[in-house]
């Protein structure tokens, strides 16, 4: 088991290294070295940049300095703001994104499993049709439309009731998180629901469910102990990609709802060509996603005995 985890981690580290290198190359491919260009607003920043990234040195040396910094977990300094390190930015903005993301993921998985199970139970009856209608909506409508629509709804709701039940944008207590998290988790929930549904139906046709019925177990018992557990397994395998979708989806949702998360900051940095922030956050997001996928794989191997055994051998 530990060997399996180590192997996964080793592959993960290689991937992260590749991401960091690709980011470096992308930045150096930009015509006219962006790190040295006049966009660095003040002399102080320019001096800082030169010191930090070794801009006066040859590219290979710059790469070594850059990788060394990354290894130490130093993601660089901002381009457009004096004395602001990317680590500071991440420290300030990532918790917001993480909170939103965790809520969205929770909402998406719980919702997906619940709705998926319901559609399978009520197969080809109206609850199935209603839920699947919304699933199709969730899959085909882009998240920014949901975001805009929900803002419009909140505005109208507040207007009708004459009080501000939910805030339209911004960040603060749970009331601020609720709607953005729902919007962010929407498409993932739709996918998971669909997956859970087909997984449930597949399981319900298996031989072992027939055996369970032949054993004279009650329908409820079969559902809980045999069907649900086996049907959830495939859903868990896609949690890795789901986390990636929710993380990048945060770029849109944070922008629309004016949430001061890292995703919004990233989008702004790209718009302002703050190359050092782009570099730092890209590597950070990349490393985060790779680690999350590994984490999900390890989690899965604990849940599915077949994988666990294979891993041990």
């Amino acid at each position, binding site marked *: 088991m530990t060997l399996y985890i180590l192997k996964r981690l080793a*592959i993960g580290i*290689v*991937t992260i290294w*590749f*991401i960091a290198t*690709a*980011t470096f*190359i*992308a*930045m150096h*491919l*930009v*015509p006219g070295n962006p790190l040295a260009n006049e966009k660095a607003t003040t002399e102080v920043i320019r001096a800082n940049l030169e010191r930090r990234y070794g801009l006066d040195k040859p590219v290979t040396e710059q790469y070594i300095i850059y990788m060394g910094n990354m290894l130490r977990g130093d993601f660089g300094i901002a381009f457009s703001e004096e004395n602001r390190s990317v680590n500071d930015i991440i420290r300030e903005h990532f918790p917001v994104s993480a909170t939103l993301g965790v809520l969205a993921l929770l909402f998406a998985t719980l919702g997906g499993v619940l709705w998926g199970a319901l559609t399978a139970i009520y197969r080809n009856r109206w609850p199935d049709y209603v839920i699947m209608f919304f699933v*199709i*909506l969730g*899959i*085909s*409508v*882009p998240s*920014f*439309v949901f975001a*805009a629509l929900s*803002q*419009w709804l909140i*505005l109208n709701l507040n207007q009708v009731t004459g009080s501000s039940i939910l805030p339209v944008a911004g960040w603060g207590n749970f009331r601020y998180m609720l709607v953005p998290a729902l919007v962010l988790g929407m498409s993932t929930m739709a996918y998971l629901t*669909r*997956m859970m549904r*087909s*997984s449930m139906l*597949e399981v319900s046709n298996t031989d072992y469910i027939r055996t369970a019925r032949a054993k004279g177990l009650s329908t409820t018992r079969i559902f809980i102990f045999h069907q649900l557990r086996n049907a959830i397994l495939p859903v868990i395998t896609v949690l890795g990609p789901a986390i*990636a979708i929710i993380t*990048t989806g945060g*770029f*849109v949702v944070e*922008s*629309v709802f004016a949430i001061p998360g890292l995703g919004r900051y990233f*989008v702004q940095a*790209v*718009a*302002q*060509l703050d*190359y050092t922030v*782009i570099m730092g956050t*890209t590597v950070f*997001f*990349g490393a985060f*996603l*790779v680690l999350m*996928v590994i984490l999900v794989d390890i989690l899965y191997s604990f849940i599915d005995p077949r994988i666990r055994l294979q891993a041990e051998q």
Partner: protein
Amino acid sequence: MNKAFAPALADFAPAPARQKMDTISRPSLSYWQDAWQRLKINKRALVSLYLVLGLLIFTLLGPILWNYDPALQDLDSISQAPSFSTTALFVDDPGIWEGVLLQESSTLPPVTGQSAVLGATRLNIEGTATTQYVRLSWEPVEGGAYYLVYRNDHQPESAEDLGLPLGQTLTARELSFEDRLQLQPQTYYYTIIASGGLREASDFATEAVELERAITVSQALERNLPATPGTRVELSAHPFGTDYLGRDLLARTMMGAQVSLFIGIAAPFIFVLLGVIYGGVSGYFGGKIDLLMMRFAEFVIALPFLLFMILFRIGFGIGPGESGIFPMLVALVLLSWPNVARIVRGQVLQLREEAFVQAARLLGANPAYLIFRHMIPNTMGLILVTLTFAIPMAIFTEAFLSFIGMGVAPPTPSWGSMSNEGIRSMLSTPHELLFPAFFISVTVLAFNLLGDGLRDALDSRMRSRE
């Protein structure tokens, strides 16, 4: 046994020779014919197929039928709601309006301050009210120190209902007001309230004014329209309305469709082709080559997709506000082929063991022949399904990237960039967001349902996957 049946002796004579029972009675259909039959039964898939065809017609034929320059700006009709035909009145250039002033000789009504009850004023419209200007004048009010002008979309019920004033006069002598603020061809309710300085009249006069769309002579000249003031002219219709620069949204949606569908269809075609070749080779040779090739594919899959899309764009040196259609295409292709390769490889591995392939191999067929003659055609169904599902994915990616300003940038329209522009005025003029968003949704929906239908029709074994 159950029914009383007494067979006669003659019935026990030997039966005549019977024809073979296992002759197939149904006409035999080829794989594709059979798939088409099954697709036709699937109503959802059929509807989505028509939707896809409709979208293609909209994209390719639309611009011919709706010949309107998508880049033409018309600052006089910005953010217009969808409308069919409109006429406009030619008017002279407005010039400067003197306004109505109380005669010097006549005495100002005394300012009585807080005590006096300020009466209602009578409201006149000077000239024709058009979208160029609305000129209001009114009777002086006793005790008025100045006048407040309000404009509402509905009949105000009470003073609280008025909202913020549109403007105010500086003195009690000015008895007129000219409104030229973003006038739309609709009915406005103008209200004048005399203010005594500290208190405002509780009585007020409201006049409903219906505005006619008008363009001035000089504007007409700009657009090469023959202009005689006082005549009316037919203006172009905007079935989808206009955007914040007065550009026709229908034309832009069509043009955006070309961009979005180009990326959404071209990229999948290329990366599916790449994936098929890669997966075919990997699966066919198997062994070490396969292991190595698949390791690499898995590695590419592990890369965070959207981040790399953005990196590619930056690497290409495309700044914000520039359209990166080509880099987006390249990035999509480079990052998306491995999934296809994996699917094709799995299928080829299976096929490799099948008898007809083994036989061909024993007969000395060369690998390229085997791959392209036997394996790829037998994988075609799966490839088609993969392609159909790849299209909505690519369209979504385009929309997502353009929406956050990382893809197609204005002024080039794509559904994503149009949504990006539209969402800013979502609350006042929702149609600017809803039209492109609707097209994204319908396209994604149609391809997804078509993919489902194809998958079910081509191979019922595939259904259990997902």
